[in-house]
Every structure is written in structure tokens, then in C-alpha cells.
């Protein structure tokens, strides 16, 4: 297993990866709380981007409604905690299967009935919107008034109940992101990864080669949904409040897929680099506009949109493939 994971990675890449990981582990000793929250956001988006990338980047199924899995994960774990005091790590055992079941339903309906391409993308939006409006009317989870997790001033970090200071959340999301990275790396090196690539490039040809495309597309949706639900649980316990209008909103789904698309779809480092660039850009812009006293609602987002536009037009494959060429890290053949 280890041999398979490390095969074909150049020495130069090893040094860079090790340095990056050490830097990320050491950061909290130097960073203030503001920088830490920014890094948490970056890692959160890198993680969710990685999860979405399994579906779109690997298996070629464009989902524009991933907020539904974040929301289901968040609401399941939060409701269990609020109503029964069940710790999030146990709540995960319910949240992940719920999201996986939802992914399985969407995938089954779409792939069985031959809903593909743009239609599939819009079907996923429809399910997410359905859930958004539905949760607005479920009083058990607070409806549109929101679900709140109890918050008190914590003097120590309670890792079991995920109650504590940003530094704890930082290490939790860092661990999740690294785990997701390794998991995706392993997936890509396994049979299923090659099957997915075959389906992504040409589904008819893949089927002709004897690949059970339905089964592997389902696997992609279910794995991606389950991974995204874990991020949902983190979201719930980090932000402590959940509103259907925010959690399930289409803008959440878009926010979640920007990082992998900007970073480079179907690549392992794409989601992380995209999350870093986009969040960094957004925070820098807030800071710059604040300096110049130019604080009108929407100003930041306009610049953000323009930057997005420039990246999409200039780098069609995303930032990572371009950066890899620059750094001389192209895979040796």
C-alpha cells in the first residue's frame, strides 16, 4: 500500500510536500486568531473541494448542489448534539450515512433515468433547493429561525465534543484535509480511479471495455457525499449556528466548487491551491478596501468576480497545472 502511494513521486515533490506540511503544523505557534480563522476557512474549502473533485474531477459528473451534503451532515450531527447531547464524533456515524443515502438516491435516479450533463447539474441544484425550502419548515431543527449549538466561553479545548478555541478546529480541519488528500491519492492509484478517468473521458467507450459505469458513478457520488458530510459536521460545530437559507443556498454550492475549478479540476493539489488563492484574494481585498476607506456593500465581490473572470479566461485548466509546469514538477514518464 505504502509503496503504491509513493511510487512515481519525485524527490523534489517530497521535499516540497514535507516542508508545506511542517509549515502548516507550525503555523498556530506564530499566527494570531485572525490568521488562524482564515487558514481554517482555506482548509475547509480545500477539504470540501477535494470531496467535490471526486465526483467532477475524477468521474466527470458535474454536481452544482453539493451544499445539500454539507447541510445534511451539519443538521444531522447538530440535531443529535442539541437534542440528545450526542458527541459529533458519534454524530458522524449518523451524518455520513444520511448524506451517502441522499447521494445514492440522487445518483440512482439520475443515472438510471439517463439524466446527464447539464441536466444532471440542474437536478442536483433542484435537490439542494428542495432541501433548503424543506428545512425551512422542519421545526425539529429550528426551521427558518435556525438551529443553535450551545456556546460558552471555553477555557480548555474539549476535543470529544468539539467545543473549544480556533486552534483546536485548525488541527481538526488540517487532519481532515491531509486525510482527504491521502485518500484521494490512494483512490487515483487504485482500479476505481482508472475506471473513473475512463468514464470521465468517454463513457460509452468505458462501457464497451466492460466497466460497470453505473456502479462506479454511484460509488463516486456516494463517496463524495459522505466526505462532504464530514465537512458539514465540522461546519456545524465551528460556526455553532445553522440556517437553511445559508447552509443549503446555491451560493454555498458555488463557493464550494470554485476552489477545485480555479485550482485545477481533477488534480490532487488543485482544490488546496484554489482555496488558498481565492480565500487569500478575498481577505486581501477586504483589507485593502478597508485601508482606503472604500467600504460599500458589494465592492469586494465585484473585484472578486473580476479576478475570477480573469483566471477563468487566462488559465482554462486552472492554476495548479500551470504552476506545476513553472515549478518543474511535471510527472516523469
Amino acid at each position, binding site marked *: 500500500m505504502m509503496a503504491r502511494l509513493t511510487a512515481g513521486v519525485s524527490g523534489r515533490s517530497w521535499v516540497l510536500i514535507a516542508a508545506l506540511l511542517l509549515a502548516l503544523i507550525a503555523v498556530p505557534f506564530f499566527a494570531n486568531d485572525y490568521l488562524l480563522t482564515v487558514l481554517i476557512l482555506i482548509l475547509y474549502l480545500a477539504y470540501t473541494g477535494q470531496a467535490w473533485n471526486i465526483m467532477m474531477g475524477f468521474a466527470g459528473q458535474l454536481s452544482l448542489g453539493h451544499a445539500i451534503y454539507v447541510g445534511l451532515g451539519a443538521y444531522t450531527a447538530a440535531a443529535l448534539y442539541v437534542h440528545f447531547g450526542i458527541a459529533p464524533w458519534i454524530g458522524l456515524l449518523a451524518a455520513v450515512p444520511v448524506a451517502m443515502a441522499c447521494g445514492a438516491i440522487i445518483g440512482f435516479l439520475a443515472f438510471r433515468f439517463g439524466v446527464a450533463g447539464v441536466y444532471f*447539474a440542474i437536478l442536483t441544484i433542484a435537490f439542494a433547493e428542495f432541501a433548503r425550502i424543506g428545512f425551512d419548515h422542519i421545526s425539529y431543527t429550528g426551521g427558518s429561525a435556525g438551529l443553535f449549538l450551545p456556546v460558552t466561553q471555553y477555557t480548555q479545548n474539549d476535543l470529544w465534543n468539539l467545543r473549544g478555541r480556533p486552534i483546536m478546529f485548525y488541527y481538526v480541519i488540517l487532519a481532515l484535509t491531509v486525510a482527504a488528500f491521502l485518500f484521494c491519492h490512494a483512490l487515483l492509484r487504485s482500479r476505481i480511479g482508472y475506471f473513473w478517468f475512463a468514464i470521465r473521458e468517454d463513457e460509452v467507450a468505458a462501457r464497451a471495455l466492460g466497466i460497470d459505469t453505473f456502479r462506479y458513478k454511484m460509488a463516486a457520488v456516494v463517496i463524495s457525499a459522505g466526505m462532504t458530510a464530514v465537512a458539514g459536521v465540522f461546519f456545524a460545530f465551528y460556526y455553532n449556528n445553522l440556517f437553511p437559507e445559508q447552509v443549503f443556498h446555491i451560493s454555498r454550492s458555488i463557493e464550494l466548487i470554485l476552489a477545485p475549478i480555479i485550482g485545477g479540476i481533477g488534480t490532487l493539489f488543485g482544490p488546496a491551491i484554489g482555496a488558498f488563492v481565492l480565500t487569500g484574494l478575498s481577505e486581501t481585498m477586504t483589507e485593502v478596501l478597508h485601508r482606503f476607506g472604500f467600504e460599500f456593500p458589494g465592492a469586494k465581490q465585484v473585484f472578486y468576480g473580476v479576478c475570477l473572470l480573469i483566471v477563468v479566461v487566462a488559465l482554462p485548466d486552472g492554476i495548479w497545472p500551470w504552476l506545476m509546469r513553472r515549478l518543474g514538477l511535471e510527472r516523469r514518464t
Partner: protein
Amino acid sequence: MVRSVPLDVYLNVAVSGLLTGLVYGLMALGLSVIFGVVRVVNFAHGEMMTIAMYLAIVLFQTFKLDPLIMMVPIAGVLFALGYVMQAGLINPFIDRPEHSQFMLLVAIAIIMVNVLLLVFGPDARSVQTSYAFDSFAFGPIIVDATKLYAGCAAIVVATALFAFFRFSFVGKAIRACADNYTGALVVGLNVKRLYSLTFGIGAACVGAAGAMLTLIIDVTPPLGPQYTLLAFVIVITGGLGSMPGALIGGVLIGMTEALAGLLFTPSAKSMFAFAILVLVLLFRPQGILGKRAA
């Protein structure tokens, strides 16, 4: 949960939903025309409509010009916007994968919403015409004048569009591009220019619909994404690429939302629209009037 109401209330709500649905249909028609020809899903459709709505409101508030008359110049402005968008930004993306096109239009949509937010602020704005509270009585049915005018205007614009695509040379050329891209190139059509024209026409539709909608609803910048979604629901229900389908889908969704708002709670009405969308996608993915893709 279901409330009991007298029959004529149902009729009134259904007619009101029908008229609003016609305007929705015109908006969705724009999306359908663009997708049918250019094969690009316009994820900035609702945002373009809010631009038209703000144009109508500014014209009304500063010059007291009626949105129903102003819809002609507004459609013209939106045509220019659509033409420039397609010619400058989207044409180079025609051969790129779907997610790439999606990102491009999302970026455009983000810019549009937030420029509107910068210029007009987050407050809701509306148009108060002299006939805002007029109504007509047809037997037991009472119809708002604004909705009746808007619904009729939508039919007029849609008919003009049908005639354009059926009888004019440019309209026929555009349909040729949609039917057979290579064939259109072979007979010497300037496909890229026709794509720009098509996007312009689609944008003009949504511009006219936006001007009409200012009579019916208040406008805020975040309305854009909501109406983009609504346009998708309508177009897929009616059949992506089918022009009459878009109108029928609009009426169906408009009436469903109106009746669901009456029977259940108004905040849940969109749920029914999305439920219809899911059912249509599963059992008739080509839409009510759409043709099965080959």
C-alpha cells in the same frame, strides 16, 4: 395544513398565476433560445433580468416613463449587452467543457449582482404606476390591471419572436446553426456572429420580461440568482430549446406556485416548482414539448 377556501378564490389565484407565468415564460424563453442555439447555459440569466428591472425603475423614477412602453428600449439595451457578452467573452468558450462555461457565467453573474448592489443599495424598489391598483372583473374573477397588461405584453413579444424565427432570413439562419453546426458553416453562415445575435435576442427577451415584472414584484439585487433558478425550472419543464415549451412551462410553474402559496404556506411555494422539475427530469427529461436528444 391545507386550508379550505371558496372556489372563486382558487379561480382568481389561478388566473393571477397564469398571467405572472406568461411573464416568467418570456424570461425563460430567452434562456431557452440561448441554450437551443449556442448550447451554453446562461447562469447569469436572472442577473441580466435584474439589470433590466433596475433600468425600468430608474426610467420610471426620473422621467415617469411607463415600464410597459420602456420595455422596448430596455430590450434594446439588453440586446446590446448580450451581443457584447457573447462576442467578447462566451464565443471563445464555445468549445470548452461545461464546467468552464459555468465558471465564466458565474463570474459574470457575481459581477452583475454586486455592481447593482453598489449602485442601488440593498433596499427593495418598486414602480407605482397610476393603474397599480386598478382591476377588471370578469364575472366572479377579478384580475389586476398590471398583471393583465404584463401577461398580454408577454404574449405579444413571444409572438413577435416566433414570427422572427419562422419567417425572417436571420431567424432561419439561426435555426440552421442550431440544427446543424457543420452544415451552417458549409453553406457559409457566420456562425459566431449568429451566436452573438442569438445571445442578444435571448437577453432582449429577459430584458422585456424584466421591465414587465417591475409592475408585479419589488426588485432587490439578490433577486437575480433566484430568477436564474426559476428560469431553469421553467425551461427544463417545458423542454430545453423548445420555444412554446418555455411559455407553457412558465404558465405551469406560475400557476403551481400561486396555488401552492394559497393551499399551503407561501414560503413553501418554490418547493412545488422544484418537485415538478425533479419529476420532469426523471420521467420526461426532454421536457413537456422537447424533442429527445439524439
